[in-house]
């Protein structure tokens, strides 16, 4: 992917806080990232790491209260999405930026036909007539590989299978030719053979339509197959980012390293014992003052509990990680520390 191209989406210092009865939860803590035209950015992290909240914050999709966007800038098309009026934002949502949610059953409206839900963005954003919208809807369903498209427009979501519903979701997200598509765990609720179908479809559509995609998942295998660049999140922060090959071949952050080791493979040699990351992710009741991974990190040392590491560059271009180990002359070998 061209490194020199201007980013289509540029996020700086994004901070989102939820105010709950049990106190504040800092879900997104100063997240910076950008997305270049035509690129597929994979966002990896466990539940609660803030990956979905980050993407929902970009489009101000979180209900407020309890969510509160404390800080940050989201530059898209020369505008700051966090500053523009709700009317202007509505013109962008679903037209220039499309969104695919994890669970196609709960994100489609069960009382409207698929045809109606497909036509809605077309009529609202592109001002199409009913007939035009209908023609385009049929095209879209054909594009995502739903057979007998014309007839299926009259069907309701429950008449589709899980994989087909996810295709409908993709069709709706693509309706207005978005420049950016945000896919939040689009295959997590699906079986592997259906997941393979959807991934092939997205690869194909990407070539055909050339949009930039943000793909959120916890499945490192999926990311390895489709992403150009990967961003690893932990406790609401980006702990590592870089080109996909670099992240998998030479992960720098101990969390990324551990994450890659805990997943057993279906091919190749089989591990006798699974590596584990002891403990569990923290709940952030305040802005991070120290490394959030230190309690689970086998390399943690004094400095890790004194300040919060910022992203710093690693040898390979575009590869950055937030870890103090990178400041040390050399990274310790895992074997030496395991003991």
């Amino acid at each position, binding site marked *: 992917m061209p490194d020199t191209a201007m980013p289509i989406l540029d996020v700086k210092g994004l901070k989102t806080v939820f105010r709950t009865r049990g106190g504040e939860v800092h879900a997104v803590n100063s997240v910076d990232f950008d997305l270049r035209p035509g690129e597929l950015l994979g966002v990896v992290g466990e539940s609660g790491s803030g990956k979905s909240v980050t993407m929902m914050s970009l489009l101000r999709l979180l209900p407020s209260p309890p969510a509160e966007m404390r800080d940050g800038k989201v530059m898209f098309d020369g505008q700051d999405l966090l500053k523009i009026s709700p009317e202007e934002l509505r013109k962008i949502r679903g037209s220039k930026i499309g969104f695919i949610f994890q669970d196609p059953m709960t994100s489609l409206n069960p009382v409207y036909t698929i045809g109606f839900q497909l036509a809605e963005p077309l009529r609202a954003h592109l001002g199409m007539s009913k007939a035009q919208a209908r023609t385009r809807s049929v095209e879209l369903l054909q594009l995502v590989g739903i057979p007998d498209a014309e007839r299926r427009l009259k069907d309701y979501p429950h008449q589709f299978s899980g994989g087909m519903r996810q295709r409908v979701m993709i069709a709706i997200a693509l309706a207005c030719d978005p420049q950016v598509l945000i896919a939040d765990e689009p295959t997590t609720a699906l079986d592997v053979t259906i997941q393979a179908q959807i991934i*092939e479809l997205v690869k194909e559509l990407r070539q055909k339509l050339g949009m930039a995609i943000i793909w959120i998942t916890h*499945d490192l295998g999926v990311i390895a197959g489709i992403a150009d660049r990967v961003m690893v999140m932990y406790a609401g922060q980006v702990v590592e980012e870089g080109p996909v090959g670099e992240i998998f071949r030479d992960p720098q952050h101990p969390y990324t390293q*551990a994450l890659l080791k805990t997943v057993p493979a279906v091919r190749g040699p089989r591990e006798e014992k699974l590596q584990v990351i002891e403990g569990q992710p923290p709940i952030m009741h305040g802005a991070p003052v120290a490394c959030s991974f230190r309690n689970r990190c086998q390399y943690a040392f004094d400095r890790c509990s004194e300040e919060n590491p910022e992203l710093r560059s690693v040898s390979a271009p575009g590869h950055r990680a937030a870890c103090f180990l990178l400041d040390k002359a050399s990274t310790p070998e895992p074997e030496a520390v395991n003991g």
Partner: protein
Amino acid sequence: MAEVETVAPLVKVRDLKMYFPIHAGLFRTHVGDIKAVDGISFDILPGETLGLVGESGCGKSTVGRSILRLYDVTAGTVEINGFEIAHVDRDSLRSKRPMMQMIFQDPQASLNPRMTVASIIGEPLDEHMKLSSDERLARIYELMDWVGLNREFAKRYPHEFSGGQRQRIGIARALALNPKFIVCDEPIAALDVSIQAQVVNLLEELQERLDLTYLFISHDLSMVRHIADRVAVMYLGRIVEVGSREALFAEPLHPYTQALLSAVPEPDPESERHRKPIVLQGDVPSPSNPPQGCNFSTRCPKVMDICRQIEPAVRDFGEGRQVACHLYSESMQTTAEPTAGDITN
């Protein structure tokens, strides 16, 4: 494990069928059946882990539940530790319950939110054993130690724990009565990646220490490859292939197993770039109206005419490898008797 051939299986399932009736119309007449499990047979040896894989709706959880008689099975026999389970009356079944237990998928839903950890783990003890309160507490503490829960948490409620810890409570409860056989129904599906490995390692440790036998039901093929000794693959209510872990993952024979394995993406960008998965067309047919002939014939990339007419018989490939597919109809002999096979490989 060299003398495997001489060991009698702990669990013996023969031609198990579990149909759920469909009632419709004003008079709720019986109009058909959902054939969730449609004639499956397998053995599990003592101390072994059999992995049962398949996609959602293929009937794998129903298999787990029916062999523990959580359902009244439609037909077939289930023998656990020499006792017939499938058709005995309630009272004699109750006395057999301690030896067979279950770990459920969702620890949130399978633990009573109003009971403390101690009362959840202690409930099976109250039901099946007569212990003094000191003995009971000692046993609860022992179980909590086994699964790595702090004893101080005995008085806490399930909502105070994380998903991984809740699953540990469910495991402790399943172990309370010294079972021989445990059905693990997607025990890690609801957990985060970094927590999954912790629970799987715990299950392996406990198996070694307590000499347990597992039926490990999962849709996660890489985890099954890690934990199981032998693997059975289900599709639409039937087992399409059984084999030792090494053989099955190295060289899947049934077209469905091939597609299933090839669909799993691998965390390696280099190999992913060149990998061409077998992408199946269409969706799984409804189990209330399975296709004629082979159940997989509607999606099979290697389908032949015969597949749409005749249901393939189970063929034995030796060393415990069995495949139900017409592709291998010549040269192989048909067998009705499932073998436990050689897990040493």
